[in-house]
C-alpha cells in the first residue's frame, strides 16, 4: 500500500493551521506523532511518501525530531514497529542541509526524490551498499543471483548486501525479489 502524507498538512493539523515552517523540537515532535498516527491507520506493510513540497523552513532540531526519530522507530531497530518504507519527496536544498546533518549524526540513510526527478540515496551508507542500491535502481528489480551477476560479486555477498539494504528499508523485499523504492512509486 502506498500512502501519501503531506507534511505541511500534518503540521497545520497537529500544531497550528497558520504555520508553514518546521521549526523547533516541540513542533517536530507533534508532526512526527501526527505522521505516526497516519501510519497506524495503514497496513502492516506500506510505503509512505512524506511530501515536503509545501514545507517552508526545516531546521536541524525539527529534522532530528521528525526524520531521525521516525527512521529510528521504523528502520533502525531489530524488530521495527511495522514494515514501513519511506520516500522523502519534494525536499529543497535547505531541507537537505538539515536532513543530511541529522542522518550523519545518527548513522541513518533514506531515499529522497525530487518532483519528477530520480531517487537519491542520502545519509550514511557504505560504498558497496550504495553501488548495489544504484544497480538495483538501474535494473528495476533483482534477486541476489541477478545482482551478483550484474556486479560481479559472490552470490552470498549479494544476498547479504540486499538483506542489509532491506533491513534499512532502502529497498523493498518481496517474494519475487528486491525492488527500489523509486520504481515502486512510478508503478
Amino acid at each position, binding site marked *: 500500500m502506498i500512502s501519501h502524507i503531506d507534511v505541511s498538512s500534518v503540521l497545520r493539523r497537529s500544531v*497550528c493551521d497558520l*504555520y508553514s*515552517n518546521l*521549526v*523547533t*523540537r*516541540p*513542533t517536530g515532535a507533534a508532526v512526527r506523532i501526527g505522521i505516526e498516527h497516519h501510519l497506524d491507520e495503514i497496513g502492516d506493510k506500506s510505503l509512505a511518501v512524506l511530501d515536503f513540497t509545501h514545507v*517552508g*523552513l*526545516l*531546521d*536541524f*532540531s525539527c529534522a*532530528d*525530531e521528525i526524520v*531521525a*526519530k521516525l527512521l529510528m522507530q521504523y528502520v533502525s531497530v531489530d524488530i521495527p514497529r511495522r514494515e514501513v518504507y519511506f520516500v522523502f519527496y519534494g525536499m*529543497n*536544498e*535547505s531541507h537537505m*542541509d*538539515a536532513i543530511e*546533518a*541529522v542522518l550523519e*549524526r*545518527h548513522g541513518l540513510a533514506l531515499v529522497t526524490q525530487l518532483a519528477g526527478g530520480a531517487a537519491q540515496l542520502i545519509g550514511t551508507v557504505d560504498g558497496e551498499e550504495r553501488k548495489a542500491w544504484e544497480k538495483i535502481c538501474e535494473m528495476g528489480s533483482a534477486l541476489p543471483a541477478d545482482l551478483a551477476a550484474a556486479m560481479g560479486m559472490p552470490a552470498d555477498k549479494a544476498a547479504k548486501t540486499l538483506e542489509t539494504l532491506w533491513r534499512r528499508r532502502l529497498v523493498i523485499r518481496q517474494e519475487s525479489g528486491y525492488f527500489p523504492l523509486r520504481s515502486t512509486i512510478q508503478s
Partner: protein
Amino acid sequence: MPPSLDDKSFELIFDQLAAVPPDVKILLDARRTRWSSPYGLTALLAVAQTRLERPTITVPENDDTASYWGRASFFKHADGLYDISGRVPRARQSAESSVLLEVTPVVHTQDIHTVVDNIQQRAHAILQEKLHLQSQITMRFTMVLSEICQNVIEHAGAGGWVAVQSYKWQQRLGGRNVVVIAVCDTGMGFRKSLESSPSHRPDDRWGDRMALEETVMRGVTRFRDPGRGQGLAGVKKFIGTWHGKLSVRSGTARIAVVPSWDQDEPMFDNLAAFPGSQVQITIPERMGDA
C-alpha cells in the same frame, strides 16, 4: 552609558552593574548614546530583568538614535521593564529600514514561529541585495536564527530577546555591509545548564570558560539524546561557510569563533558576572574575492 553600544562596549555596563546589588535602583543614562547594535538593545532589556528594583533609562538625546530605538521596538518592550525618562518617539516603520527583525521576546515555542515568519521576507531582500549572498542563504540564515532562539527556550529556563539588523560598517572591512543577530537572556547560562546533567563530573578547571569551550567548541549538551547539540553545530557550520563571526558570553567568560577579517580574542575570562547567555552573530557582505 557609552556613546556607541555594542558587545564590546557593553562590558563597561556589566562592569558597573557588578558592583551594584540587584535591589538597588539604577539609572542607565543613554542621553549621550548615539548608536546601538542589536546586542546593545537586547542586552539592555536583559539588564532590566536582573534588577529587583525597577531601573530607569533615559532616552537618547539624538533624534535619529531615539527614532531607531523606537523603530526597533526597544521602547515598546522597555516600557514594561524600565521607568523611561525623556520623550519616547512614536514608532514608525520606514520602508527602507535596516531593521530585519525588531527586538522580539523569545519565551515560548510559538515565538520562534513568529520570528521565522517575520524575518523571511525582509531577510531575502537584504541578504541578497545588500550582502550579495546567494539566494539559498536566506533559508539557512533563518535556520540559524531559529536554532539560536531555541537555545534560549531549552537551556536558559527563562525568556530572552532577539533582534536582527543590517548596517554598513564605516571603517571595518572597507565599509562593507553586515547583518547582525543578537540573542540575550538572563537564564541559567551554559555552566549551570551542563551542571544539571546527571553525567556531569566537574574538575578543578570547571567554570564558565570551560562550559563555553565544551558546548560551543565540542558540542557537549546536558541531554543524553545523541540528536541534541545539532543546532549549535549547524550554526558554526553556517558561520564557517559565510565567513561570519560568532561570540557567546555566559557568566564570566566569552568565547568567539573569529574569522580572518576580525581581530577579536577567541576567549575572555574573568569578566564581570552576568546571568544567562548573550550571543552575537555577524555575517559580512560577500565580496568578489570571497
